[in-house]
């Protein structure tokens, strides 16, 4: 893990010096969306975003222009969430964390049900079922899948936001997809261990 990972991610993209408003406001909808998923509450999500904004504004003088602002502010959001009451509860998934921190432990082959692709596709088309499945994900899996699929962050950016190795990001994303699939299929098999 790097000390200042967000400064290393996407160093090739170097926007001109910009003010906080120009950098932060376009990210506001994304910040709120992720905050809403994590907190599962509209008021708490607003509070989380507001606190994130204030912290980011206070720390903006120390932000290195040209480095990855998105990773930087999402990291603030995530750390602020973790220090909240909701976030502290999410942190209690100790067993899951221990399992996931082992970056070499990739998803077991048995976790994937390769037998019912048609059924899977039908369930995938059910948006409500997918939203329920996402909502049932453990916070470490939910945040990683949101950053990857919704925010379209690269693994190294996600690693910078979550302050974890890229291998762990890879493992978590795979586990999140297996868990979503298991949830959509209504399975209670091996994948359930990941969800709980």
């Amino acid at each position, binding site marked *: 893990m790097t000390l200042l990972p967000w400064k290393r991610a996407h160093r090739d993209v170097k926007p001109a010096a910009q003010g906080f408003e120009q950098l932060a406001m376009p990210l506001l909808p994304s910040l709120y969306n992720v905050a809403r998923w994590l907190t599962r509450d509209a008021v708490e999500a607003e509070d989380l975003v507001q606190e994130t904004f204030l912290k980011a504004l206070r720390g903006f003088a120390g932000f290195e222009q040209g480095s990855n602002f998105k990773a930087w502010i999402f990291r603030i959001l995530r750390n602020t969430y973790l220090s909240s009451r909701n976030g502290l509860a999410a942190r209690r998934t100790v067993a899951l964390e221990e399992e996931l921190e082992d970056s070499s432990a*990739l998803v077991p082959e048995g976790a994937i049900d390769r037998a019912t692709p048609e059924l899977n596709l039908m369930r995938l088309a059910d948006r409500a079922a997918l939203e329920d499945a*996402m909502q049932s994900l453990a916070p470490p899996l939910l945040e990683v899948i949101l950053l990857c699929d919704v925010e379209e962050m690269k693994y190294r950016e996600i690693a910078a936001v979550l302050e974890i190795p890229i291998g762990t990001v890879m493992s978590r994303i795979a586990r999140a997809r297996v868990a979503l699939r298991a949830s959509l299929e209504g399975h209670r098999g091996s994948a359930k261990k990941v969800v709980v």
Partner: protein
Amino acid sequence: MSEHLSAAVLSAAVDGELEGAELARANEHLAICLQCSSECLWNGLLKRRVADAGARYELPSSLEERMRRVATGGSARRSNWGSWAAVAALVAVCVGAVVMQRIWRERAQQAAFIGEVLDQHIATLAAAAPPEVISSDRHTVKPWFQGKLPFSFNLPAALPAGMTLDGANLTYLDRRPVAQLLFSIGKHRVSVFVEQSADERAVSAAERAGFHVVSFRTVELEAVAVSDAEAGRVAELMQALRAAQ
């Protein structure tokens, strides 16, 4: 056929995160393995569906407005010139506020003083009682104030034509002892209040409720005349009084 790809590799493949030998090995396997190709396709579809379903919550406009105010109000990284301009503007506003406050305070004090002087004059006109000292002789009126006032003043030896000294009262303005000299200009009564000069109170010519208020100030004295007589005549009386000091 090689071993099936792991879930992590399949995920990384749809996320575009495989590189080099790992990517080559995955492509090689996917080209010949229907199951893994199917899984890869499923993961790709799942990724797109999660992207759609995940963008679920719309930003409340109220929050956007609040955050815009936060971002704008505290916008960091302003240029030094901007910072200095902001400081200069703040200083200018503060100085302006102090000056305006002082002006308003002086005006308020002046208005209050004129009002008090006017009230005293009207009270004197309305009172049935005669002045405390009745005399047209300056050598009678001036000595009457000895021991009553902490200052002294002079009266002119001769007043302008048509003006007479009627007497005087000891009164108080703003809790300070003041000589109220009573004159007549024709049938019009004039009150001239004489007190020790107070720098913070600058009274100039003014008009209030039909009465003319004319004043002068010397180093030690301040005199204010109130009357419904012609303003020019009142000023003439005040010039005579000033000349006597």
